[in-house]
């Protein structure tokens, strides 16, 4: 006994209230489906494993007093001494703090007659202990040894690349060991040979597992490790500690460095996890805002449905009484109002689907987002349906208190 026809005709004659719910349902679907998708993607990014031993890493920044630069000897001595401290798993020189968002990124392409080859990577300068200190696995070949380390990049001969860079540069399944590559990750092979004829080339000696070393939200191809002591006014050491030793070592390491050379200052000691938290602050804020937007929009829609259903119920008390007098059961009246709400919400969802896909198209076009999967659209529709029905349920139940004798009260 579903009164689709009469309900639709009744709604058609009461367009304003119904239009508001239709509009609200459409907007809710568009916002909730897209926001949930963005939220899910962001959470996935935040929670994805970085591939480094982030829980047991901290960095220490050291700067010499005066205007001098660090010498390679100082760096080698410091790292050697740091590795001797009890509780230190490994220590290394590193150009960029892990998960700090600070990195040297390179996006290059080589163009030939008809092909554009693009690769995006992070360049990370470190010493032979860098990979082990980070806790990243070596998948193939070897990492650097002392003889690989140079003071000037122009003297460099070898590099280690992550699997993603290897696949992007040489193709999946191709052995990258022994292949040549630029610091930008471009191989001088095939059609690109001519384009890179003047570039400095390095031999790939190892392939590391993929890891987000410099940035959590990195979506590039990976990392190229360079065996290079970069002369600078400050250096950063990366220390990997044994479990539960980090707090203690964060005090012991600065003391050790001061003990080795008192003519320098410690400018910062920070855990990689704190770097990560700082890096993700904007993402966490975004997640909270997205969730708030979803809750807010859903609440507004829910309250709108409750309000409108209450108004409809109150306005139609007499009509409900007449329907009861004509034989409607209490649940029949409740069912009528729920069906009415379901129809209005469904019409809203039809417009909502168009709006949702349109909004997603804009996000894809202007913010490089992925296309909204069908599952999000269907889930969003189910949620809005459920929201509308549950919001209408309590006001609809109030109709059960209306006596059929209301119909005769005109006397």
């Amino acid at each position, binding site marked *: 006994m579903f009164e689709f026809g009469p309900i639709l*005709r*009744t709604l058609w004659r009461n367009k304003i209230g119904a239009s508001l719910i239709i509009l609200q349902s459409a907007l809710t679907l568009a916002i909730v489906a897209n926001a949930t998708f963005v939220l899910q993607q962001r959470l996935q990014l935040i929670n994805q494993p970085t591939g480094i031993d982030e829980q047991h890493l901290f960095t220490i920044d050291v700067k010499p007093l005066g205007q001098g630069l660090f010498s390679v000897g100082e760096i080698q001595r410091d790292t050697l001494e740091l590795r001797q401290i009890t509780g230190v798993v490994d220590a290394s020189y590193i150009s960029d703090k892990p998960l700090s968002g600070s990195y040297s990124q390179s996006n290059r392409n080589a163009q030939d007659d008809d092909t554009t080859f693009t690769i995006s990577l992070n360049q990370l300068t470190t010493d032979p202990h860098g990979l082990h200190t980070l806790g990243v696995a070596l998948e193939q070949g070897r990492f650097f040894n002392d003889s690989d380390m140079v003071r000037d990049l122009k003297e460099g001969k070898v590099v280690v690349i992550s699997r993603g860079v290897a696949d992007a540069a040489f193709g999946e399944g191709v052995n990258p060991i022994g292949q040549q590559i630029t610091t930008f990750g471009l191989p001088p092979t095939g059609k690109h040979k001519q384009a890179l004829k003047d570039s400095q080339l390095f031999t790939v000696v190892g392939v590391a597992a993929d890891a987000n070393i410099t940035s959590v939200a990195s979506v590039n191809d990976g990392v190229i490790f360079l065996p290079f002591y970069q002369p600078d006014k400050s250096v950063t050491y990366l220390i990997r500690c044994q479990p539960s030793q980090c707090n203690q070592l964060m005090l012991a390491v600065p003391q050790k460095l001061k003990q080795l050379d008192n003519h320098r200052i410690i400018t910062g000691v920070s855990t990689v996890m704190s770097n990560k938290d700082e890096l993700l602050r904007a993402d966490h804020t975004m997640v909270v805002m997205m969730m708030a937007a979803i809750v807010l929009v859903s609440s507004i829609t829910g309250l709108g449905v409750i309000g409108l259903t209450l108004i409809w119920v109150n306005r139609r008390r007499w009509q409900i009484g007449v329907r009861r007098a004509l034989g409607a059961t209490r649940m029949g009246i409740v069912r009528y109002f729920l069906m009415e709400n379901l129809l209005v919400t469904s019409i809203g969802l039809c417009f909502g689907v168009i709006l949702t896909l349109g909004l997603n198209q804009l996000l894809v076009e202007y913010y490089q987002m992925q296309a909204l999967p069908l599952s999000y659209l269907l889930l969003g529709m189910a949620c809005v349906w459920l929201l509308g029905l549950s919001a209408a349920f309590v006001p609809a139940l109030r109709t059960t208190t209306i006596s059929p004798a209301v119909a005769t009260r005109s*006397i």
Partner: protein
Amino acid sequence: MLKMEHIAKVFRTDTVATHALRDFSLHVKAGEFVSVTGPSGSGKTTFLNIAGLLDSFDGGSYQLDGINVSGLNDSARSKLRNEKIGFIFQGFNLIPDLDIFDNVDVPLRYRGFGRAERKQRIEEALLKVGLSARAKHLPSQLSGGQQQRAAIARALAGNPAFLLADEPTGNLDTTMARQVMELLEQINEQGTTIVMVTHDPELARRAKRNIQIVDGEMADLTLKQAV
């Protein structure tokens, strides 16, 4: 058809108990046309509500078409109301958002008839009251007399055991009232039992039998004996 025995109905507030009906008995046989009259506040509406299963009663017994209604739950009362009683209200009580066809359709949907049967019954009922051409009109597009005829069509469409009319001409001018009354008389002549509540003595006299309620009771012994 309708058998009320010693019906009592009391409306209570914290301080006052009002006896709307007391020791009220009435038997209506199939095919009768009974008018129920009385002054305002006499208990006519209470009688109507109880007779139409719109309200409960506190004492006595009531059998409708052989069914004792005392022990029925709300759902069963709704079903019985829908199947046995056709209502004609003073204010027509047509649903303003539905056209005449859909208005007549309302009780038939509750009855669970299929689409084709409903359509046939609606068309027959509208033909009977002379409103076939107005099926797609909204109530507001009809005159008062036409609206009441539409309400009569709605009451008749389900082929009820009896019609319960509540001041059916109360909102109509003389001409319209006469037309509606003639229509009710025709319906009664075709065998439908009618109980009509009215405060109009002229109208009451046109029924085959008249009973009067005063202060919740039958007005005089003669009528009580007749019952």
